[in-house]
């Protein structure tokens, strides 16, 4: 099977329940917890160990309203008593059909923006970090 580039329209993002937007872009960063363990016997060469995998994702889209599932944040999340349990759940980042990164993520921050200018759209973005293992699925033979 010939390799194919991922280009053009497509992809997808399913966010943690309660966080909403009409998503247009996402990004993921994998940090493998590099620790410098360089010692005297490394003869002047740097030495690095990897310790744990932290996955940070961002998703950005259009702020929406007028639907039961349009609130950018779960209402309970920002109620009089902060409800942190509402801030985590399943999320899936899809690069192409059959090519996903999925797992349990905590939404660590959200941003909203609005401009009065014609042609602009309200925007929403969420930053997520993994809670435990994530699953990489890359359908290499489809």
């Amino acid at each position, binding site marked *: 099977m010939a390799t194919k580039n991922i280009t053009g329209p497509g992809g997808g993002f399913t966010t943690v329940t309660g966080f909403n937007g*009409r*998503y*247009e872009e996402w990004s993921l960063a994998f940090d493998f917890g590099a620790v410098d363990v360089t010692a005297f016997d490394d003869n002047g060469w740097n030495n690095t160990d990897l310790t744990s995998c932290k996955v940070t994702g961002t998703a950005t889209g259009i702020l929406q309203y007028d639907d039961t599932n349009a609130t950018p944040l779960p209402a309970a999340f920002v109620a009089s008593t902060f409800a942190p349990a509402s801030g985590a759940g399943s999320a899936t980042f899809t690069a192409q059909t059959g090519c996903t990164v999925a797992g349990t993520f905590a939404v660590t921050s959200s941003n909203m923006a609005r401009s009065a200018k014609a*042609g602009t759209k309200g925007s929403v973005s969420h930053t997520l970090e993994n809670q435990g293992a994530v699953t990489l699925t890359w359908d290499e033979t489809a």
Partner: protein
Amino acid sequence: MSQALTEGVYGALTADQSAGTFYDDLSGRIYELAAPEDAALPHAVFNLVTDPPDETFSGDDIEATVQIDLYGERRLGAAALGDIQAKLLAELQGAAVTVAGFIGGVFMFTERGQRSIDGGAHRITLEALIQANA
């Protein structure tokens, strides 16, 4: 999709046909692309300038540009056509645009009016952005 969008724009331009409106001032003479050779003045001509797909993970939205040219008799002066322009701006800025297959269509002017002379007519050119989501 452009046909549905064109129908949506025409629908917005002709939505209010009551006395004293933009539509009424033109006696309904609103055309796409070009007016007939013998079209009386004043009249309006609109055309879809751009209609690129505006992709999201949930489907392709609309973010299209439409140009509207108003033509009026030169002998009546620019102010007469300006009154019609003012009605168009008041009636359509932020107005809903119904595009089949899409929701939340809205009409926003990005150019409120450039005045020029076109033969024996005054012309005022406006541009608007149409946004809607799938």
